């Protein structure tokens, strides 16, 4: 019994071939079994076969093994892990579904071949004696399966690559296998990829054409965030999901795609543009010419690339037109420059003058309605009145946060309301920057005003001073100091207006002229603001310089105090002397003695007191002021020369054009080569 059980069976080749055909479809036979522990096929030991037959069968069973792999992938859709096999297929996403579809198609093709082979056996099956006439031998099977095996192998590679990825990433994974020198292999991959790409292609065309996203499994490379409100639509709502970007779409194209759909949504939701968008027909016809394959074969057919470029061009120009023509972006830019960057000189000057009284009060006593009526006065009195009413309406007064001890000057600011589509360009951050710039420029301007006030008073004082030669030195010193300060302030203003504002503005205008898309406009504007902020020494890098400038402003205030004291002293002294002389004259006219010893004594004493108390005090004040000022200028120049910005080096050269400060400070003499 046991002998019989272990008896080796001789098997006819025909039987073997039948077995092998089952194996080809992944089905175990009676002789050839699947060994799950080793993941291979093996032949029943009981069966006696020649070594060469065994080897042939093992070789052929490989094909079955490959078939099994692909088949099992198809079953659970390549989702995350084996345990989720049942759930996997529906959640894996559209790309994976179509991938499975493609694989199934390939497998069907393969099964057809097996069926053909089977038929060949059937034909020859009736002749009992020899298989010779059947025309099918194991060797022949090897030959027949040569090609299907290669195809299956390619498919297995693909399934391996597509494991645990979905959507765009899955497409990328498959696309990697396109890079193969074997034309047969490439053809298989191409076929599978074409099908797998279809969902992506559909989403892409929808997005390009309508700006709609229909992507339940987050497979597409464009993501939208439904929580973002419409006013931030351009900046925040849509983004590129980089992990889902198919590797055959490059970054630049992806950005164009994003911008195209975003523009459509922008037009619809923000600009409330209802009319059909022109130029759609051209895009539609271009779209009809593209195929799924043009997605991943950019070198063979450029239709898709053309389509993306075309759509981008069309929608972008549309958005630009909307923003520039209908919403008058340039006018707003100009207005911002005029009012917030102090471009409109007469208006700013007048405004500053009429605000002077109001703003010298403590900040807590200010009322916006007072200020805005003054603003209206200033508008009416200057050329600003010819501005578009829309723009004037947006112009407003704003008080910044008050901290204790602030004067009106510290908290006053102009404001410009932006909303709607242009708010996309003038974002909240941009407006913050504008306010910051206004603040700095306003301060600079005010210093200029103070200095010119000082100068005016000096002109009056110097006239009076002719009667007081003892104060000539002080007056002269004050005048010199004022001139130095005026020089600095003027140079700074020159620098700001011409080197910074004008240059940046020019840059902005040229880029705007050549801009093709809203993004370029936004970037140009941002760049414009950044440049001005850096130029106005408001960025982090020049913080130190800015603080220095602030101390300089304090010095100007001090000088004003000094000037006031000086003119007060001069006035009172001159007045005292004049009354004295007039009294003398009056008495002499009356025929009396003009003066007498006692009174003379009082007068002398008064003059002596003036000489001893008031004059030295003024002199020392002046000396202190001059000294601190000069120290400050020197370190200021030093800072400028050490700054990274070349323009500031030029500014420092201009400030010290005749090397007046240069000679005083060895540090400015450092070697630069």
């Amino acid at each position, binding site marked *: 019994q046991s002998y019989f059980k272990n008896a080796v069976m001789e098997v006819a080749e025909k039987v073997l071939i039948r077995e092998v055909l089952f194996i080809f479809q992944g089905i175990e036979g009676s002789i050839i079994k699947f060994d799950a522990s080793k993941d291979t096929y093996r032949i029943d030991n009981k069966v006696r076969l*020649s*070594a*060469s037959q065994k*080897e*042939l069968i093992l*070789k052929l069973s490989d094909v079955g093994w490959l078939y099994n792999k692909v088949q099992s992938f198809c079953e659970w859709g390549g989702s995350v892990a084996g345990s989720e096999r049942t759930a996997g297929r529906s959640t894996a996403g559209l790309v994976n579904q179509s991938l499975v579809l493609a694989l199934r198609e390939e497998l069907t093709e393969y099964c057809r071949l097996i069926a053909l082979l089977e038929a060949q056996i059937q034909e020859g099956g009736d002749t009992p004696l*020899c*298989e*010779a006439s059947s*025309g099918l*031998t194991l*060797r*022949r099977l*090897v*030959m027949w399966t*040569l*090609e299907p095996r*290669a195809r299956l192998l390619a498919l297995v590679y693909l399934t391996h690559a597509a494991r645990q990825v979905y959507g765009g990433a899955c497409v990328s994974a498959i696309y990697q296998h396109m*890079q*193969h*020198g*074997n*034309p*047969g*292999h490439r053809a298989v991959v191409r076929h599978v990829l074409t099908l797998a790409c279809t969902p992506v292609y559909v989403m892409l065309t929808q997005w390009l054409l309508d700006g709609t996203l229909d992507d339940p499994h987050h497979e597409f490379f464009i993501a939208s965030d439904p929580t973002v409100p419409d006013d931030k639509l351009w900046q925040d709502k849509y983004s590129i999901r980089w992990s889902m970007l198919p590797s055959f779409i490059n*970054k630049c194209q992806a950005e164009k795609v994003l911008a195209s759909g975003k523009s459509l949504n922008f037009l619809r939701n923000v600009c409330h543009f209802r009319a059909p968008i022109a130029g759609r027909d051209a895009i539609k016809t271009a779209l009809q010419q593209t195929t799924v394959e043009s997605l991943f074969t950019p*070198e063979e057919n450029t239709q898709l690339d053309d389509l993306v470029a075309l759509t981008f061009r069309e929608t972008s120009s549309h958005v630009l037109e909307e923003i520039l023509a209908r919403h008058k972006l340039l006018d707003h830019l100009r207005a911002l420059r005029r009012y917030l960057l102090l471009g409109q000189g007469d208006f700013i000057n007048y405004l500053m003058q009429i605000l002077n009284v109001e703003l010298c009060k403590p900040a807590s006593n200010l009322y916006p309605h007072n200020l805005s009526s003054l603003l209206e006065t200033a508008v009416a009195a200057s050329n600003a009145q010819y501005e578009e009413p829309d723009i004037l309406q947006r112009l407003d007064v704003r008080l910044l946060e008050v901290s204790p001890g602030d004067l009106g000057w510290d908290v006053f600011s102009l404001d410009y309301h932006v909303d709607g589509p242009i708010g996309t360009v003038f974002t909240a951050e941009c407006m913050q920057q504008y306010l910051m710039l206004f603040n700095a420029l306003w301060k600079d301007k005010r210093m200029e005003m103070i200095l010119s006030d000082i100068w005016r008073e000096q002109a009056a004082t110097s006239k009076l001073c002719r009667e007081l030669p003892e104060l000539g030195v002080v007056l002269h010193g004050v005048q010199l100091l004022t001139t130095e300060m005026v020089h600095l302030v003027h140079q700074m203003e020159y620098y700001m207006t011409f080197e910074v504002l004008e240059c940046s503005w020019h840059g902005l205008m040229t880029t705007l002229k050549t801009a093709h898309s809203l993004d370029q406009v936004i970037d140009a504007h941002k760049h414009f603001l950044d440049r001005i902020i850096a130029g106005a020494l408001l960025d982090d890098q020049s913080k130190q310089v800015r603080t220095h400038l602030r101390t300089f402003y304090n010095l100007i205030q001090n000088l004003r105090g000094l000037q006031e004291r000086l003119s007060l002293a001069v006035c009172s002294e001159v007045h005292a002397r004049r009354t004295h002389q007039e009294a003398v004259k009056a008495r002499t006219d009356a025929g009396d003695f003009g003066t007498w010893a006692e009174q003379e004594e009082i007068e002398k004493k008064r003059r002596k007191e003036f000489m001893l108390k008031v004059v030295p005090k003024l002199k020392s004040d002046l000396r202190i002021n001059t000294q601190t000022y000069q120290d400050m200028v020197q370190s200021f120049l030093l800072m400028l*020369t050490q700054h990274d910005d*070349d323009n500031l*080096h*030029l500014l*420092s*050269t*201009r400030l010290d054009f005749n090397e007046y400060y240069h000679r005083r400070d060895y540090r400015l*003499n450092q*070697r*630069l*080569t």
Partner: protein
Amino acid sequence: GALGDVSSTSQEHQLIEDVLSVMMGIEGRYITVQLPTKHYDSPEFTVDPSVEPSLSTLVSRILPLCGYYSQLIRFVENKSCYHHGLVNQALSAAITNLIKDYMLLVTQLEEQHQHWALTLHKLYFYVEKTMAVMDMLACVTRVISKSEAHGGAVLSILHDRTVSLTGCGQLQDVMVFLTQSAAVPYMNILAKWLYRGIINDPYNEFMVVDRESGSEENEDEDLADDYWEKRYTIIPQNIPTFLQVHANVILRTGKYLNVIRQSDHSVVCPHQEELVYSVRDRSYAEVIERTYNFASKRLLELLMKEKDLMGRLRSVKHYFLLDQGDFVVQLMSLCEDELSKNIDDVVPTRLESLLELALRTSAANSDFYKDDIECDLQPITLMTQMLRILSIETEDEREYYPQEERLQLTGLQGFSLGYRVTWPVSLVLDRKTIACYQMIFRHLFYCKHVEKLLCRVWVSNKVAKSFPLSASRTYTAAFALRQRMLNFIQNIEYYMMFEVIERNWQNFINKMQKVENVDEVLAFHNDFLSGCLKDCMLTSPELLRMISKLTTICVSFANFIERMKKYYLEAELWMSDERRDSIDREESPEPAATIHEDSQSFEQTISRFELQFSGMIYTLMERISEMGRDNYNDALVNVIYRLDFNMYYAKKHEHLRMATS
């Protein structure tokens, strides 16, 4: 059991069965296989020793074929892996195709065998032809595997083999088929590179490599000059031998296309054809030539039309070759104070703003490219710079290297202009070219400066008109020398400006009107510059040294006169009343006492200057005429006629020689 026991017909039958197995790579019953140690070698077969010897020998004739087969199979399986590259994969695919034919043969033989119609002799006859092909294939694959060739190298091996098989008819056809199939991916990469300038080469098989790929974000303006030189490079081992001659052209074609693309122009080559490898007719060579011409022409168009290359060059000429007279004069007088300082004390920003001022206040203001001019201070003199360049790769290379002469250098000697060029104009005006322009500029500028100094001496000499006759005789020698110096320097300038630069420029312009592609532009421009450098005597160290010595003498003479001016004015005009007030009395209370000694030494110094100057100018002229004798169609000889227009020096020299002899 052993096979030897059965009849020879059975033996034969069994052996054929085994041979058919072995031919499919499966070990037989009586034929055993030993696998080789190296994967690319052929396996060893042993036939059962008991077999009849004649049969055994016949079998062993057939067995190599089985070895070839297994070699090929192993090659195909090995090289189909991704990392072996596209060319190897394509080659494997082609070999697989051939193997399919072979398998068909085997199955046909099997069929015959099943019908008992096959004998070993017949078998041998059937496989003999296939054997030669398989032998060749195995041999080729072995070479490829052994050298671990990859990409272009594989194609080289295949091509060489194909060529060496010329005349072998069918074998060559097979090889051509193989090479053609293997070359397909490579040719695709090549086509993409030639037609669009894109490299899509995942396994580094192509001969051109892009060093910057992947980092596309930092394509900013501040690309270094040699960026394009270094970005694309050729990998020599990846050039297939049949493309060797075109390698450079291929590199440049793609590079030009990239240049055009970078300037925001999409380029599509109009005549895109599939590139196919072939041994005999070199259709691909024509395509390469055509695309190269296209790319080159397109780039030239871009440069000439959109980037206004000629306008740029003209602007460069305005500034560097002192073409714009008023600008140069303006610049020189504005910067004189700043530049007369030591070079380390010159403030570059101040210089920059002065330059700006000069640009905007002269006629250069209308130049569109004036903003690209900048200042450039170089810490060595022109002569050292030239000598260093000239001495590179000669024996005295080291001699000029470690010299520290920075300290004595004035700003004027180190001053030169710079020019900011953006891509793609920097293709023509690269750093080297600008350096050449700078050298010429420095030379001309310095000469101009010397002329200015001498002219100033001339102005101050005009005072001598009011000197008494007796006194003025003291100064005639000095005046005469000044005149000669002025003559010298002005003529040298004239020569350089008109006979060298203008003439070369005209030539250059004429050539540029007929220019066809970018390489010609580069070549012409190079010719122009080297012509200018050579004829301005900058390339001959000997002449350059002489010229610079002469200018040094002139400068020290001018300085000396300037210094002495105060003294002689006082000395000669102290007595004349009307001048007395104009001279500052406080500075020299007793001028008359010191004058005598001064004038004594004054005359001596002048004569010393005179001696130096004449000596130098003689040697210079002699040297030039010597050179002229060697090479008489040089423009250089004209200098002599200019310098010695009325044979003054010639006569004097004759005189001198007579006196000494």
